[in-house]
């Protein structure tokens, strides 16, 4: 590339970088973070350590013979990186009662896939229902910080029959 072309490239990049960042902010407010975009992890949210509340999901499967089994998100979503599980649970496995929109109940559309995930844990009987149980988890202040309270919020029940 000629020096002039390189110079022009740098000028364009210097103009485009703030513009794309502004776009990330606007699109992120209205929808969700766009991709690809040149941003780094922000960890924007500020948690208060002495009153940390976190919404967490766990899975409970009911089989045709009455057997019930609890599964973690890590066991259910092992096809995805662990750091993606929180985002995927929020966008795909969250009851409309919590999110305000049925769009977050997309997991219902993956019935066959869900059956394939839970069947190996109890091959003797067919799975008939999957409950995604959402709870609010509260922690004590440091330094002990054990889980002190699990408060049920809502459940997304998916019929697997």
């Amino acid at each position, binding site marked *: *590339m000629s*020096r002039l072309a*390189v*110079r022009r*490239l*740098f000028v364009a*990049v*210097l103009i485009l*970088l703030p513009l794309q*960042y502004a776009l*990330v902010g606007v*699109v992120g407010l209205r*929808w*969700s*973070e*766009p*991709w*690809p*975009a*040149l*941003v*780094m*992890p*922000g*960890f*924007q*949210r*500020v*948690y*208060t*350590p002495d009153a*940390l509340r*976190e919404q*967490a999901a766990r899975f409970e499967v009911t089989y045709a013979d009455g057997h019930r089994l609890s599964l973690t998100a890590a066991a259910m979503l092992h*096809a*995805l*990186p*662990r*750091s*993606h599980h*929180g*985002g*995927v*649970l*929020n*966008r*795909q496995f969250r009851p409309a009662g919590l999110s305000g929109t049925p769009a977050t109940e*997309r*997991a*219902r*559309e*993956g019935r*066959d*896939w869900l059956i394939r995930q839970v069947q190996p844990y109890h091959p003797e009987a067919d799975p008939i229902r999957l409950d995604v149980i959402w709870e609010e*988890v509260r*922690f004590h202040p*440091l*330094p002990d*910080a054990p*889980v002190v309270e699990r408060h049920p919020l809502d459940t997304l029940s998916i019929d697997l029959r």
Partner: protein
Amino acid sequence: MDRFDRWIFDSFPVTPEGLGIYRIGYALFTLLVVAPGHGAYTRFADLGTLPEGFFLPPPGPMMLVPGLPGPLFFQGVVLLLNLCLVALLLGYRTRLASVLTTVLFLVGFGFSYSFGKINHTLLFALVPLIMAASNWGAAYSVDALRRQNPAPVVAGWPITLLALLLGFGMFTAGFTKLIGGWLDPSTQAAQGHFIRQFYTLGRQDFLAPVFTRITSPVFWESLDWATVCFEMGFLAAVLHPRTTRLFAALAVGFHNATLLMLNISFAVNLPVYAAFLDGTRWRLPVPFPPERLARGWALGGSLLAGTAFFTWIGSPLSWLDGLVSFSSDLTMAEVVAQLTALGLVLALGAQAWRRRRVSRHPLPDGTSVPSSDG
């Protein structure tokens, strides 16, 4: 205009050999640590097993994709990605391999981030595309061995471009924290994130348990301020090569601190920081690639064997995971890469400090200090 030109073109002097070694380093790091097809964030083939209904592309070009392709498509992406990386390692059709590596990473990551979560790996994926413009295949490459024309001119401005993109990216991380309230003395944001990672995500490895006992608001607030100042300051740092190198070195320390405390790895940024090392005196002790690999069956066989190995067997470093079991989602390859980078930064820092001391207090005539070249 002179200063602007000097910043663009003269900030990072390069040699064909230095760029060649950087290219080999990028390819090796990617094959061994990022491990396309096997790494936690590059097991693209698994995406093809997810239900179509889960496909939820983020705003952007992925929305134009009509649906989730099947596993065969993703296996093809992994295969081609490994082929391009092996070609990059050997320096075979370097420019094409560089461009395709970036494109294939963008495709793979694009699908991976279409289920509800985005990781910030764009800069890592852009490195080959940007460095292709530097002619990083001019030395230590099959292209160089087969070349009949004069060697192409190498350019340092892509490294300045990389610095600008990195500086801006880091600035966005700091700015997001600033507007999020990280500097409010009544809240300790780093502590809040640490507790959340420790208790809800099970990130309890390395020094994490030690930090549960630290309750001093002064300590945690100083971490909040240091993080925001460091990340936002990166943008100003890239205006000068020396401060760019200093901040890149600090970033390696910063990522190791988050690794040991929060058990979060950001090893994908290491190849970006490595671009700012002064490679003008780098030389490989042995010819690479061997002359006999440059042509015919030997070349084809090397490409195929390398691609097959990394596609179906994977990174030898992944075998280290069998030795240690983490409660977090860290892998040994990431840990080894980050700690090695920290060791390198400390060694280079000590070397620079020794040189500076010698230049300030010259030794009497007749004595000598071994140079960095040995």
